[in-house]
Each structure stands twice: as structure tokens, then as C-alpha cells.
């Protein structure tokens, strides 16, 4: 009916109108998931409950954990769960950020939603054997909740993250190691990885030149670092707030435990 009315006008108008109608629904009609915060580092304090020194201390501790164990742990505080259960929000956030090494799924999230008074340890598929549901719950009940109940968010988050790191085989108190020492550690064990990365990089440049838009080499490699460091275990972040931290592509399937206070 509407079409017929519209067709009395100019044909060009109808065509644009149809095009607009055809293009709009797919984006508007998608099942709307939660809005996720940006992965800005190993500590994402969206709720703003952590002090700068807590953030830098945690970042050090978690970077150190990835250095020694290859497992990514991220602490996130949320301003709002947007009406979702924390279990729902957690696994989707983990998948969206891709925390943990791709294929191994060795990542974990410590999620705090202070406004809903919920806390959750979200465990990637690959860590479900070490960071079991029962162990996650014990950490929440013993390390995190007592602090939260007395209003000490910083203490609770630090104690919780330290317990997770300890369980994963890291050393939470080793965070003070000199940065350059840590920077070399990541590459020492994997000369092959370096060679492969180099080969991939060269091939990439060659392909780029062949199908070249603009000049390949001239633009420098600064534009593509995330492409070349997809896996875990690399010193992507040296020191506090170094940027460039990204998930390795790990996935989550609902392991872990939740608590509330």
C-alpha cells in the first residue's frame, strides 16, 4: 500500500526509500547485547572504585602472571550490568575481549559490579581445571567478600586477584621485578615464534606490495602491531598503562563462580 503511494512520486525517490528500508533493519533488528567497556588494559575500572596505585599494582601483578604462566587475567569493574545477570554479562565480555590465548582459552576475568553488589570470577575453557568453580567460590568467599562487606574495594580486588594469580602458578608478590628483565623473558623461550612472526611479517609485506594500495613499507610497522602479536605470552605491556594490551582470542563457557555482598 505504502509502495503504491510512493510510486506515484518519482521513481528515484522510491528506489532510495526502498534501499533505506532494506539497509536499516539488519542493524536495528539484531538482538541487542549488553554494551561492553573498552579493553584499555589489564585493569578496566569503569566503575571508578580503584585508586591509581591499586590499578598500577594490579597491572604489574597481572602482567607478571602472563610473563611467567602465559595466562591472561583481567580485572574489570562495571558501572552497570545493564539488567543482565553477572554470569550472562561475564562470559560475553570474556568472549568479546578474547582474554586468554587463542586455542588454549587460558584467560580469566575478575568482574566487580559495585552497584549491583555482585562479583564474579569468569574462567576460560582452558583454565576450568585449575581455577575450578569450587576454587573460584572459595576465593570469592574468603578473599574478596569480607573486604567488600567492610567497604574496602581496593583490598578485596587485590586479595582476589592475588589468590587467582597464586592458583594459576604465578607469584603475586614478584610484581616489582625490573621492567627490562621481564621484557626479555617473554622472547627467550620462543626463538621459533620469533622466526615465524618474522616470516609472516615479510610475507604480509610482499602480499601488500603485490596487491598494493599505497606503499607498503613506507608506512612502517607501527600501524599493525595487533596483527603480529595475537597470542598470549608476549610482553605487550611494559610497566603501567603502557597501552597495546589486547586479548589473545580465548573463549569462555561459563566456568567460575559468583558472589554478592
Amino acid at each position, binding site marked *: 500500500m505504502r509502495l503504491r503511494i510512493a510510486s506515484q512520486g518519482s521513481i528515484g525517490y522510491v528506489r532510495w526509500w526502498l534501499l533505506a528500508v532494506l539497509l536499516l533493519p539488519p542493524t536495528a533488528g539484531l538482538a541487542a547485547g549488553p554494551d561492553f567497556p573498552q579493553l584499555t588494559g589489564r585493569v578496566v575500572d569503569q566503575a571508578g572504585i580503584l585508586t591509581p596505585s591499586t590499578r598500577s599494582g594490579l597491572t604489574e601483578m597481572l602482567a607478571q602472571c602472563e610473563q611467567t604462566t602465559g595466562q591472561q587475567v583481567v580485572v574489570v569493574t562495571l558501572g552497570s550490568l545493564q539488567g543482565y545477570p553477572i554470569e550472562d554479562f561475564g*562470559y560475553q565480555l570474556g568472549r568479546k575481549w578474547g582474554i586468554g590465548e587463542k586455542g588454549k582459552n587460558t584467560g580469566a576475568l575478575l568482574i566487580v559490579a559495585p552497584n549491583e553488589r555482585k562479583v564474579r570470577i569468569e574462567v576460560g575453557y582452558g583454565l576450568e581445571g585449575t581455577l575450578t*568453580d*569450587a576454587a573460584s*567460590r572459595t576465593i570469592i568467599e574468603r578473599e574478596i567478600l569480607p573486604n567488600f562487606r567492610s567497604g574496602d574495594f581496593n583490598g578485596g580486588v587485590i586479595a582476589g586477584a592475588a589468590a587467582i594469580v597464586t592458583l594459576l602458578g604465578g607469584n603475586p608478590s614478584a610484581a616489582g621485578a625490573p621492567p627490562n628483565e621481564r621484557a626479555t623473558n617473554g622472547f627467550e623461550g620462543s626463538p621459533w615464534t620469533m622466526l615465524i612472526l618474522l616470516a609472516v611479517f615479510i610475507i604480509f609485506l610482499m602480499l601488500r606490495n603485490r596487491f598494493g594500495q599505497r606503499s607498503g613499507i613506507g608506512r612502517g610497522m607501527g600501524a599493525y602491531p595487533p596483527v603480529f602479536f595475537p597470542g598470549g605470552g608476549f610482553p605487550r605491556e611494559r610497566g603501567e598503562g603502557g597501552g597495546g594490551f589486547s586479548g589473545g582470542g580465548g573463549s569462555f*563457557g*561459563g*566456568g*567460575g563462580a559468583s558472589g554478592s555482598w
Partner: protein
Amino acid sequence: MSLKQLPSPARLSIVALVLLGLSGCGVNTLPTLDEQVKAAWSEVLNQYQRRSDLIPNLVETVKGYAKQEQTTLTAVIEARAKATQMTIPADILSNPGAFHQFEQSQAAIGGALGRLLAVSEKYPDLKSNQNFLALQSQLEGTENRIAIARRDYIGTVQTYNTELRTIPGRWVASLLYPNLKVRETFNISEQAKEAPKVTF
């Protein structure tokens, strides 16, 4: 030699090739999606199995503290036995009857477990038992994993069914994969109704 002089199988295959060319080389899409559906289904089965494996331990632990809850305990054991006895036919994913039966038997376990956890609230000794707490958190985690596995399965089936029923995929299927069928999927609202509410 024109097209009309060719024997008919050859002509047909040329027509098929042209159609495939038109469909934008989506020849591998359907098998890929089919495998994803199978993998997602395996994960669903895996998580239900995991829950089923937790039950004997849980029942034993609760029994030690709450012998008088015999009916609730029996209900859990019977629901589990019934689900275990059900033979899952190979074609369950395209067999609405069997699929629905499977879903109902699992929902019965979920309901019985929910009641068991609810009555165990009455026993403070049980609630402070370390073994019970561990089992309870595992059960909670498993219910969560089941929910996610189901949701992932629903997602893959949706993609697969859409590909199978919309135009290029439909042609590809009728030419190359005539035995691929539309897959059954879970009814989310039913799950929401029957899922045990596990609160602590």
C-alpha cells in the same frame, strides 16, 4: 557442438556448475555450518553429562544430613535414571519428537535438583559442609555452562537453518547435500520456565 547435442547428464552438470557459480562459491558453507551445529550439540550433551555425573555425590552428601528428605532425593535419582535410560537416536537433531523428549528429561533433572537444593537450605549443618559447598558451586557452574551451551547451540542452528532455507544455500543443498535437514532447536522460554533457581 552446441549444448543441445550433449547427453543429458552432461547438460545437467553444466547447468549445475553455472548455478553454483552464480551462488557465489558457497559450496562449503553448509557443511561448515553443519559441523558447527554438531560441535555445539556435543557441548550441550557434554554439559548435561557433567551435571548428571555430579548427582550421585550430591545425593550421598545430602543424605548424610537430611535423611527425612527421602522423596526429594528419590525424585532426583529417578529423573537422572530416566534421562540416562533414554537412548538418543542418531538423527535427534532433525527429529522433533526425540529432541523434545530429550529436552524434557533434562528439564526434569533440573527441576528435581532445584528442589533438592531448596530443601537443603533447612539444614545448617549441611550448608556448612565443605563437600556440599563445593558440590553446590560445581552444580551452579554447570547449570551456567548448560545455559551457555544451549544458547551457543541455538545460535549455530539459527545460522545453519537460515543458510539451508534461503536462496543460494537452498540451491546448493538441493544439488549437493540433499540429506541435510533443518535442525531442531531449544525453546528458550521453556528453559526459562523450568530452569531451577539456584540461589545461595
